[in-house]
């Protein structure tokens, strides 16, 4: 049978969710074609704010990549705006002439930001806040300009303001309303929010109208003129004054529109072959802007498109869970109260907590929570069930766990939540579903719960509650996500991850720029953060960032290892553990000349000269350099050694030339700086005399090639290296090991060894990047080679006149 044709116009969250629901119900019913005006796959628009704030990367918000469309046989046209619907011939045409016939058409054209019709509103530098392009324009402006004005103190406006502030801009929010978020919060909670945001450096002008936008010399906006004539500087203006359903296309096609495309309870327009979902829709007089109702609509539309025609959409009761700049807010129902209602209020402005419950005729009809929103789902459940709460009334404000006994430590609202209570409002997931998924599918992390249940995968505001449910269900087997995001040190709230992301996102190349961009609490950091930042700068921009010696531990400044008495140890490099009589003679000469008290063979197959005075270091390096030797980096967060066995060169069991392979690897990695020290070993056969099983990268020769192992560690807690893959040639050993080490250099946190990095991201993640993706692997390898192309012997370069000063004491004459 010939398949019917379904065309989706609008590649956003509502439209694509409808396709997902439809594919579940009827995977083979349609040939599907999707048109999207933006040049991307479907992404999570709600998470643009964390991208702006630098909390997550753009790549993390993609919901369906191109592979997903391909896998389901969907034809995807991106960057094409549909401009015409020919209803008579059932065909749509895009701006570039691309056409598609349909049996059914699904409109999900979303909404557009409302731009105030005031003088100057079309100047360059004025943006709405809707899509990836807007976000990128804001990021670009934040790098170049200082002053931003956000018009509108609603959710989107506050998120934009917060993001721009974190990106280093001076931000003022101009808001017409009497308090912030007046559609979601009452005056008291709005005031608490404002006070909290002001303490973070944001400025507010409330009950203030914008009159005009003034151009500067370049033609770009330069100032915002307010009612009364006051002008404030602004090289970036973000208009967040509301959205309008995008109905241009529907109207042109003659569909019934009235502040949205009008649909019935089947999400069908007045043309039975055309359905519509999402923010472009007017259902029973309401155009929804929150994601939860859109997903409910998607379910209904899918049900009808699948031919089942059993469900209907009757509108949504919405609650708002908001996360504005890390402050938790919740509101639902008639939270403003009104005639015939009573209020129970708990108000603790100093402690940052506010709770208001609105009652009518013995039932809960509205609620606002500020600060602690853990009880939000419980109140929302009471509200939706319209339950009589008279007998709960005296305990109601204290939440569901009140009448119970004193709480056990660690016990929380998640434990007392009913299985039927909704946890994720966006995706309509209740507690029971999450608990069941955790138990039956062995889920252990927030990310896994997101993947399997979709809970917390849209706006993310219920992430905390989902974590509580995980903790309550798993008990001791649970590690909170927060531990993975702890601040780098006492100088900042930012984690290693977010510092590195900020460096990449803003192209920061100096530590001072990092301190500024992330509002460091100390003038120049401390002994914990400075070395980490120096590493992130150098590894992110190897040829641009300048090394800062004063941000390195003394060993890396002196290219030697400080000992307990303040003397140093010197270890010349012996490639692959090999040396020769001339080198040995030079080492012996140096040991005598500088009266080295201790000469020791190290665990890394080389010779350590211990007890050298700092002022003698440049001279002993010069002597060793003259004999052709270079620094062994026995002191650095860097490549240390490549240990080898004698291999097939001499050994009767050897299958591969281990010494030669080791030397090649060590030469490739020379002077490689890393999050922590890096040690390799190459054994010529599985007897593994080089102990490759406890190295960051272990290479074991077998008859047909090499086995590669990663993440081994012989330190405090011995970790056995894990098998990565098998390769055939020397060249592949170089490419795979190099690519893995580059991945570690780019993603490992400072002072995180490969075994801890491996534990954090998991072996499948690394195999995906290094083994299964040849192109990606070659790119990592190429970046490593590029970073090391100017590798220098630090002994030789440190002997130049200027850096040598640190080695010479000043003599105080008698």
């Amino acid at each position, binding site marked *: 049978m010939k398949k019917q044709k379904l065309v989706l116009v609008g590649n956003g969250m509502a439209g694509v969710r409808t396709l997902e629901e439809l594919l579940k119900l009827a995977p083979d019913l349609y040939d599907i074609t999707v048109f999207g005006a933006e040049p991307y796959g479907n992404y999570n628009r709600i998470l643009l704010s964390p991208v702006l704030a630098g909390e997550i990367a753009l790549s993390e918000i993609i919901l369906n990549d191109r592979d997903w469309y391909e896998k389901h046989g969907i034809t995807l046209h991106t960057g094409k705006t549909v401009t015409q619907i020919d209803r008579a011939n059932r065909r749509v045409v895009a701006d570039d002439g691309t056409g598609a016939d349909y049996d059914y058409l699904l409109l999900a054209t979303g909404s557009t930001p409302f731009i105030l019709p005031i003088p100057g509103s079309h100047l360059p530098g004025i943006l709405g806040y809707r899509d990836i392009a807007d976000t990128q324009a804001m990021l670009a402006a934040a790098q170049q300009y200082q002053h931003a004005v956000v018009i509108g103190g609603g959710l989107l406006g506050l998120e934009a303001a917060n993001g721009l502030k974190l990106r280093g801009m001076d931000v003022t929010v101009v808001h017409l309303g009497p308090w912030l978020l007046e559609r979601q919060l009452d005056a008291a909670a709005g005031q608490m929010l404002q006070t909290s945001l002001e303490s973070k450096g944001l400025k507010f002008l409330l009950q203030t109208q914008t009159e005009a936008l003034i151009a500067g010399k370049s033609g770009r906006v330069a100032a915002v003129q307010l009612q009364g004539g006051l002008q404030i500087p602004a090289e970036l203006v973000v208009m967040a004054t509301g959205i309008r359903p995008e109905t241009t296309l529907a109207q042109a096609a003659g569909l019934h529109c009235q502040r949205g495309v009008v649909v019935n309870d089947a999400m069908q327009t007045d043309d039975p072959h055309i359905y519509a979902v999402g923010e472009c829709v007017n259902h029973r007089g309401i155009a929804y802007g929150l994601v939860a109702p859109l997903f409910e609509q998607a379910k209904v539309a899918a049900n009808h498109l699948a031919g089942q025609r059993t469900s209907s959409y009757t509108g949504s009761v919405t609650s708002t869970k908001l996360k504005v700049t890390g402050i938790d807010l919740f509101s639902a129902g008639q939270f403003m109260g009104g005639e015939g209602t009573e209020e129970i209020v708990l108000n603790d402005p100093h402690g940052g907590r506010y709770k208001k419950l609105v009652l009518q005729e013995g039932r809960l009809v509205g609620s606002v929570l500020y600060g602690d929103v853990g009880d939000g789902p419980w109140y929302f459940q009471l509200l939706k069930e319209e339950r009589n709460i008279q007998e709960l009334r005296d305990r109601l404000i204290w939440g569901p766990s009140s009448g119970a006994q004193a709480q056990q430590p660690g016990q929380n609202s998640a434990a007392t939540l009913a299985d039927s209570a909704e946890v994720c409002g966006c995706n309509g997931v209740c507690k029971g579903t999450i608990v069941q998924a955790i138990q039956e599918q062995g889920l252990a992390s927030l990310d896994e719960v997101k993947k399997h249940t979709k809970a917390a995968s849209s706006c993310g505001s219920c992430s905390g509650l989902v974590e509580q449910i995980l903790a309550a269900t798993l008990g001791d087997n649970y590690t909170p996500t927060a531990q993975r995001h702890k601040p780098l040190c006492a100088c900042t709230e930012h984690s290693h991850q977010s510092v590195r992301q900020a460096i990449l996102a803003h192209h920061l190349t100096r530590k001072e720029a990092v301190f500024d961009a992330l509002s460091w609490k100390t003038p120049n950091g401390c002994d914990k953060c400075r070395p980490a930042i120096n590493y992130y700068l150098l590894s992110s921009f190897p040829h641009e960032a300048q090394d800062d010696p004063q941000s390195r531990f003394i060993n890396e400044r002196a290219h030697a290892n*400080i000992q307990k008495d303040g003397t140093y140890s010197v270890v010349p490099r012996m490639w692959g553990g090999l040396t020769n009589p001339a080198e040995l003679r030079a080492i012996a000469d140096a040991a005598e000349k500088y009266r080295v008290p201790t000469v020791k063979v190290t665990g890394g197959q080389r010779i350590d000269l211990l007890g050298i005075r700092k002022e003698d270091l440049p001279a002993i390096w010069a002597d060793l350099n003259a004999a052709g030797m270079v620094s062994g980096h026995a002191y650095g967060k860097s490549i240390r050694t490549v240990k080898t066995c004698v291999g097939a060169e001499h050994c009767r069991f050897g299958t591969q030339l281990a010494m030669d392979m080791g030397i090649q690897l060590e030469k490739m990695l020379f002077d490689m700086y890393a999050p922590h020290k890096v040690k390799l070993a190459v054994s010529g056969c599985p007897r593994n005399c080089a102990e490759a099983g406890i190295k960051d990268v272990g290479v074991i020769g077998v008859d047909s090639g090499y086995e590669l192992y990663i993440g081994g560690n012989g330190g405090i807690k011995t970790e056995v290296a894990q098998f990565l893959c098998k390769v055939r040639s020397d060249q592949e050993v170089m490419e795979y090991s190099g690519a893995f080490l580059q991945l570690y250099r780019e993603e490992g946190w400072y002072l995180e060894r490969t075994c801890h990095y491996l534990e954090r991201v998991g072996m499948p993640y690394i195999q995906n990047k290094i083994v299964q993706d040849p192109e990606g692997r070659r790119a990592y390898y190429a970046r490593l080679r590029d970073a090391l192309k100017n590798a220098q012997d630090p002994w030789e370069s440190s002997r130049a006149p200027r850096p040598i000063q640190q080695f010479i004491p000043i003599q105080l004459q008698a």
Partner: protein
Amino acid sequence: MHHWKPICLLEDIPPLGSRIVQRPSGGDIAIFRNAEDEVFALHDQCAHKNGPLSQGIVHGRKVTCPLHGWHFNLETGQALAPDVGSCATFAIKVEHGQVLLAV
């Protein structure tokens, strides 16, 4: 009374760095320069296990000993909590780019 002795130029000490001053009588002095071009002088011996403070990382008005990470206030020579101890300090000043140490 202090006898001010010229030691070196301010620019001879790297910002957020240090130099060692050796006295004929023994007992090295570590002189530090911070990001604000303030200078400080401390006995170059950590109160913990005699580590050379001159080799530590300088931040704000503090230095971290390279051996076991004790922190010292450069102005007072006092160890920062939770550690307890102190190092001798010396009067030091900068005049016209010249660093002067009181001996």
